[in-house]
C-alpha cells in the first residue's frame, strides 16, 4: 500500500463541444476549447512546474513558475492562464525557462524556513524546488522576510504559519470558489501582503473549517495539526464518510494502523474533492476513551455492567430472545437498524428479524426522519428515492429550497449549490427561520417565504394554485407523462379558491404576492429543482408535503432531466441505504411489500424459511406495545432512541418496560441506560461495506484498521441468528451484497467488483442500467404514468394558545451531528458546547429574557432548561433549538404527534412557553442522577475478555 496521489491538471479541463489541437514539446494534443496550456500538457503527462495552480480552482497566474514558450509569441506566458489554441506550438522546457523558474523559486525560498523539521506538509513547494533544480539561494536569508511572523494556532484542527506562506492565494480562492464562504483575504500589498481570516484569528473568523484551504496550500503554511503531531502518512485507503447523506469519499491517510488525516478524494463522485469540518476533521471519536470495547451484560438496568466474552454475550442475547418469544409470543421481540450502519449490516439485521425471529418487527431510524419521503415519492413517482445526482444542480436555473438548511446539514452539497447560485441561478427559500442561504456572501435568495411552522402543505398548494390558474402548467409534459384523470382532479383541487395564496396566507403568514411571484419564477424556467429536508418530512403532514412537491415538479415538467427534479437531502450517511435494504416492517429490500407472494417466495426460497406475510411493528408501535406489556425484547443497532426520538419520557418508559434490551454501539449511549446486554460496535474506519447516499449512490466503505472490539459488526447479527438456530453464513460483506443483488431487482447489477471498477453506482443498477442511473424517470416514470395526489391542507392538532403561545421547531447545526455521540467527542465542541434556545428579540423582551439567560422550555408533555440566545433568524412566535446534547433534553419537550402515513414524528411543531428560571428541570436532575447510576461498569474479571 502507498499514498494515493491524484492527478492535478493545474487548471480545470473545460467542457466544450469544440476541440482544439496543438503541439506541446513535439507531441500533438487535442483538448476541449478553453482548456489551458498547462492542463493540455498534463493530459499528455507533461507536468509544468506550478505553485498557485490547482485544477479545482480557476487559473490565477500569480506564482510565475509555469512559464512556457509559444512559437510566434513574445515573452514567456504563464501556461495556467493561457488557453490552448488551434495550431499553437508550445515548449515547456528550455534553458531560458529553467533559469526563469529557478529564479522565481529561489526568491520564494529566500523567505521560507530552512529548518526541514518545520517543513511538514510543504511537499508541493519542495517538489517544485527540486523540479526546477534549485541548489542554492544566492540572496542569503538575512534580508527582509516573514520568518518571525506569529503562527495562528487557534483552530483546533489546523495551524497557519505565515512564515511558510508565499501568498499564492490558493487558500483564498479555495475558500471562495470551492467552499463559497469568503472567509479569507489577502491583506496588505506587495511584500506586506499576508493571508488573513478577516480581522481576527481563525477560530473567531467566518471560517467553517472545511479544510479546503489546508488542502490547497502548497507550502505547508496551512497544515493539519495531526500531521504536525504524527508525521506524514505513508499509505491511504479510499472510504466513505459516516456523517451526513452527502456521502463524501475520503482518503484515510495512515501511518501503520494510526489514522493521520482524512483528505477528501477528488475521484469521489459525490463530493469531487471537497469536505466539511465533520468529515475532514471530526474523526477523533473513533478512538475516544469513551469507546466501549467489551461485550457486557447485567440482570437489571439498575445493576452495574459486567464485562463478558463475545460468546457469553451473544449466547445470553439468544437465550433471552428465545425465552421472551416462548413466554410472550413470536411478535414480542424486534430489531431497530441504523442509518449509520452499512447496507450489509442492515440487510443482515432485517434478515435476523424476518428469518430468525420469524416476524417483521424491524424498523429503522429513517422512521423519524425521511420515512415520508419514501411514502410520498413512491405514491407519486413510483420509487422511494430522489430523482437526481448532486451534479444536476450545476444546471438548475431556479432552486426551490424548502425545509432544508444545507450549509449546516449538508455542507459539501451546499458549496456546490452556492457555486451554481453565484453563477446566476435563482433561489427561493421556504423556511420558518432565516437560514444562511437567505443571505450569504455573493448569494441572496430572490424570495424568502418565511412560513409558520406546520404550514408547508398550505404553502405548496398555494404555489400549485398559481401554476394551474395562471396557465403555467407544462401541458405537453403532463399529457405525455402523467395520468390525465388524476391530473385533472388535482388541477381542479388546487385551483379552488381555498388554495389560493390569498386564502392560505392566514395559515402560512407568507404574503400572497410573494407566493405568486415565487410560483411564477419556479414555473418560468426550463430547469427548476426542488431540494428539501426534514423541515418537510417531520410534520403531521410530512408525506402530504412530499407528494405536493412531486405534484408541483410534475405539473411544470421538472422531472426526468438534468437540472430539475425532487431531491430529498438525507440526514444520515445511509438513510437511503437502510430504507433500500428492507428495514421497514412492511417491505423487503427494494421496497416490495411482505404480502406480495412472488417477492416473499423469492426470499423464502433463498433463505430456506417461511416468512410472515403481515407487516410488523414500527418504532412508535414497539414502544406503545412495550408500555402495554406486549413487546418485551429489542435489539437496537447504532441508534439512540432515548435521545433522538420524540417525547423522551414515553420512550424511556417503553424501554424500561422491556425485559431484554440489547444495544450495539460505540458508546454507552442514552438508550444503553435501559439495556441489559451491550455489544460493542465498530466505527466506519473499522468496516468493510457500502453506504448509499442521498443521490442513490452506492459507495464503498473500506476498512482502514482492525475492529477495536475484536469483531466485525456485521458478524454480530449473523452470530445471533446462528445462536437462535437460524444459519447465516458469509465470509465477507461482499457476499452479503451478492445476496442483496440476487434478491433485489434495483441492485441486481451491484457487486464489490463493479464498485471498485467504477468508483460508485447509483441504483437502479441492473441489466437495463448496468452502470447505474444518475437521473431517474427520464423517458417514463418507473410506474408508467406519474400520479398526482390530492393534498388537502390539514392543520396540525398541535396549536399554540394562551398556556403555550410559542411554537418550537428543532434542527441541527454545522459542527454537531444529530445526537452528537460522535461530534461531542471531538474538538467540534469548541464551536458548540451546548444546545441553546434561539428566540426572537420581541418574544425575549416580553418575557424579560436576555441573551445567555437560563430559561425553561415547557410543552404539554414535558419541560427542560436551556440557555437563551436572542436571534433575529427567528420570526416572532417561533423558537428553535438543536438536540445534540442529551442533557439539554430537547426531545423531553417534543410530542408524539406524527405523520399520518408513516408515523414520522412532528419534531418541527411543538407548542411551548419560555420563561426565565434559575435551575435545571426535574427531568434534567433525574437524568443526571441516572447518568451516574445506570452506566456503572464493574471492573473486568480476568477471564472475561476474549
Amino acid at each position, binding site marked *: 500500500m502507498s499514498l494515493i496521489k491524484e492527478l492535478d491538471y493545474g487548471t480545470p479541463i473545460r467542457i466544450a463541444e469544440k476541440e482544439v489541437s496543438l503541439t506541446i514539446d513535439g507531441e500533438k494534443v487535442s483538448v476541449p476549447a478553453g482548456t489551458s496550456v498547462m492542463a493540455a500538457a498534463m493530459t499528455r503527462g507533461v507536468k509544468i512546474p506550478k505553485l498557485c495552480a490547482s485544477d479545482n480552482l480557476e487559473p490565477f497566474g500569480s506564482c510565475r513558475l509555469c512559464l512556457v514558450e509559444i512559437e510566434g509569441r513574445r515573452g514567456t506566458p504563464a501556461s495556467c492562464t493561457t488557453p490552448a489554441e488551434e495550431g499553437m506550438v508550445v515548449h515547456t522546457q528550455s534553458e531560458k525557462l529553467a533559469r526563469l523558474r529557478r529564479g522565481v523559486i529561489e526568491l520564494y525560498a529566500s523567505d521560507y524556513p530552512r529548518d526541514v523539521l518545520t517543513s511538514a506538509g510543504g511537499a508541493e513547494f519542495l517538489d517544485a524546488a527540486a523540479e526546477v533544480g534549485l541548489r542554492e539561494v544566492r540572496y542569503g536569508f538575512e534580508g527582509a522576510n516573514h520568518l518571525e511572523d506569529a503562527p495562528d494556532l487557534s483552530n483546533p484542527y489546523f495551524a497557519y504559519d505565515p512564515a511558510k506562506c508565499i501568498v499564492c492565494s490558493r487558500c483564498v480562492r479555495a475558500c471562495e470558489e470551492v467552499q463559497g464562504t469568503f472567509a479569507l483575504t489577502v491583506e496588505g500589498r506587495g511584500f506586506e501582503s499576508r493571508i488573513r481570516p478577516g480581522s481576527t484569528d481563525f477560530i473567531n473568523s467566518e471560517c467553517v473549517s472545511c479544510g479546503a484551504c489546508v488542502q490547497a496550500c502548497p507550502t505547508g503554511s496551512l497544515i493539519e495539526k495531526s500531521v504536525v503531531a504524527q508525521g506524514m502518512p505513508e499509505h491511504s485507503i479510499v472510504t466513505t464518510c459516516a456523517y451526513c447523506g452527502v456521502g463524501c469519499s475520503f482518503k484515510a491517510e495512515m501511518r501503520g494502523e494510526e489514522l493521520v488525516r482524512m483528505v477528501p478524494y477528488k475521484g469521489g463522485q459525490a463530493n469531487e474533492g471537497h469536505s466539511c469540518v465533520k468529515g475532514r476533521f471530526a474523526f477523533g471519536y473513533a478512538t475516544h476513551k469513551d469507546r466501549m470495547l467489551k461485550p457486557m451484560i447485567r440482570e437489571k438496568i439498575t445493576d452495574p455492567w459486567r464485562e463478558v466474552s463475545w460468546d457469553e454475550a451473544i449466547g445470553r442475547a439468544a437465550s433471552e430472545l428465545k425465552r421472551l418469544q416462548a413466554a410472550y409470543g413470536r411478535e414480542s421481540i424486534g430489531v431497530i437498524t441504523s442509518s449509520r450502519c452499512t447496507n450489509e449490516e442492515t440487510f443482515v439485521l432485517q434478515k435476523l428479524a424476518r428469518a430468525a425471529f420469524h416476524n417483521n418487527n424491524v424498523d429503522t431510524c429513517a422512521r423519524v426522519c425521511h420515512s415520508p419521503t419514501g411514502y410520498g415519492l413512491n405514491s407519486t413517482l413510483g420509487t422511494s428515492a430522489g430523482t437526481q445526482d448532486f451534479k444536476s444542480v450545476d444546471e438548475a436555473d431556479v432552486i426551490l429550497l424548502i425545509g432544508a438548511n444545507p450549509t449546516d446539514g449538508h455542507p459539501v452539497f451546499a458549496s456546490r449549490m452556492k457555486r451554481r447560485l453565484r453563477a446566476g441561478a435563482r433561489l427561493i427559500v421556504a423556511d420558518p427561520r432565516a437560514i444562511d442561504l437567505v443571505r450569504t456572501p455573493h448569494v441572496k435568495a430572490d424570495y424568502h417565504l418565511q412560513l409558520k411552522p406546520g404550514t408547508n402543505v398550505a404553502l405548496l398548494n398555494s404555489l400549485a394554485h398559481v401554476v394551474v390558474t395562471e396557465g403555467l402548467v407544462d401541458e405537453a409534459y403532463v399529457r405525455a407523462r402523467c395520468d390525465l384523470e388524476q391530473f385533472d382532479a388535482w388541477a381542479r383541487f388546487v385551483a379552488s379558491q381555498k388554495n389560493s395564496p390569498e386564502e392560505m396566507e392566514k395559515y402560512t403568514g407568507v404574503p400572497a404576492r410573494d407566493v405568486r411571484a415565487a410560483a411564477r419564477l419556479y414555473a418560468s424556467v426550463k430547469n427548476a429543482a426542488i431540494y428539501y429536508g426534514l423541515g418537510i418530512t417531520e410534520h403531521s403532514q410530512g408525506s402530504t408535503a412530499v407528494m405536493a412537491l412531486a405534484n408541483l415538479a410534475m405539473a411544470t415538467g421538472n422531472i426526468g432531466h438534468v437540472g430539475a427534479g425532487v431531491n430529498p437531502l438525507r440526514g444520515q450517511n445511509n438513510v437511503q441505504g437502510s430504507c433500500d435494504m428492507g428495514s421497514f416492517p412492511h417491505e423487503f429490500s427494494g421496497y416490495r411489500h411482505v404480502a406480495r407472494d412472488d417477492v416473499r417466495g423469492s426470499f423464502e426460497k433463498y433463505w430456506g424459511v417461511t416468512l410472515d406475510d403481515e407487516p410488523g411493528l414500527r418504532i412508535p*408501535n414497539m414502544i406503545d406495545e412495550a408500555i402495554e406489556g*406486549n413487546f418485551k425484547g429489542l435489539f437496537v443497532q447504532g441508534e439512540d432512541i432515548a435521545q433522538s426520538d420524540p417525547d423522551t419520557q414515553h420512550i424511556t418508559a417503553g424501554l424500561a418496560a422491556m425485559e431484554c434490551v440489547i444495544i450495539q454501539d460505540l458508546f454507552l449511549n442514552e438508550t444503553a441506560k435501559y439495556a441489559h446486554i451491550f455489544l460493542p460496535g465498530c466505527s466506519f474506519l473499522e468496516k468493510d461495506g457500502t453506504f448509499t447516499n442521498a443521490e442513490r449512490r452506492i459507495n464503498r466503505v473500506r476498512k482502514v484498521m482492525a475492529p477495536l472490539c475484536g469483531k466485525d459488526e456485521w458478524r454480530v447479527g449473523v452470530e445471533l441468528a446462528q445462536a437462535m438456530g437460524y444459519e447465516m453464513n458469509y465470509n465477507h460483506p461482499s457476499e452479503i451484497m451478492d445476496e442483496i443483488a440476487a434478491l433485489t431487482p434495483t441492485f441486481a447489477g451491484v457487486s464489490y467488483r463493479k464498485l471498485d471498477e467504477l468508483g460508485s453506482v447509483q441504483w437502479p443498477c441492473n441489466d437495463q442500467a448496468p452502470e447505474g442511473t444518475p437521473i431517474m424517470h427520464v423517458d417514463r416514470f418507473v410506474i408508467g404514468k406519474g400520479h398526482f395526489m390530492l393534498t*388537502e391542507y390539514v392543520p396540525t392538532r398541535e396549536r399554540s394558545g394562551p398556556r403555550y403561545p410559542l411554537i418550537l421547531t428543532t434542527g441541527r447545526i454545522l459542527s454537531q451531528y444529530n445526537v452528537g455521540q460522535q461530534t461531542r467527542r471531538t474538538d467540534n465542541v469548541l464551536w458548540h458546547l451546548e444546545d441553546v434556545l434561539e428566540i426572537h428579540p420581541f418574544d425575549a423582551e416580553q418575557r424579560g429574557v436576555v441573551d445567555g439567560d437560563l430559561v425553561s422550555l415547557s410543552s404539554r408533555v414535558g419541560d427542560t432548561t436551556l440557555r437563551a440566545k436572542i436571534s433575529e433568524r427567528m420570526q416572532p412566535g417561533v423558537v428553535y433549538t438543536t438536540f445534540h446534547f442529551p442533557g439539554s433534553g430537547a426531545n423531553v419537550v417534543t410530542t*408524539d404527534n406524527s405523520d399520518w402515513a408513516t*408515523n414520522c414524528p412532528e419534531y418541527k411543531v411543538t407548542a411551548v412557553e419560555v420563561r426565565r428560571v434559575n435551575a435545571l428541570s426535574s427531568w434534567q436532575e433525574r437524568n443526571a442522577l441516572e447518568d451516574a447510576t445506570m452506566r456503572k461498569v464493574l471492573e473486568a474479571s480476568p477471564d472475561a475478555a476474549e
Partner: protein
Amino acid sequence: MNQDSHSFAHDHNKAKLIRMAKEIADFFHAYPQDQAVESIAGHINKFWTPKMREDFLAAAAEPGLSLPPLVSAAREKVRRRKAG
C-alpha cells in the same frame, strides 16, 4: 410534568389507533367517498400489524364512540387477523 396533559400525549394505545385512523381519513377526505374508504382501509391493511388492526376494530366497536363517517365505513374493510 404536567399531569393533566399526560392523556394528551400518551393516549391509551387503542385511543391512539383511533386517532391514527382519523388522521389517515383526513388525508383521503379529498377523494370521492368510495375511493377514500378503500384507500383508508388499504392503508391500514398495508401498514398496521394484525394486532393493531384487531385493537382498532375492537376500539371502534365500543359503544358511544363517534367515528367520522369515512373511518366508520373503512372499518368494514379492515382485514382481520388470519385464523391460526
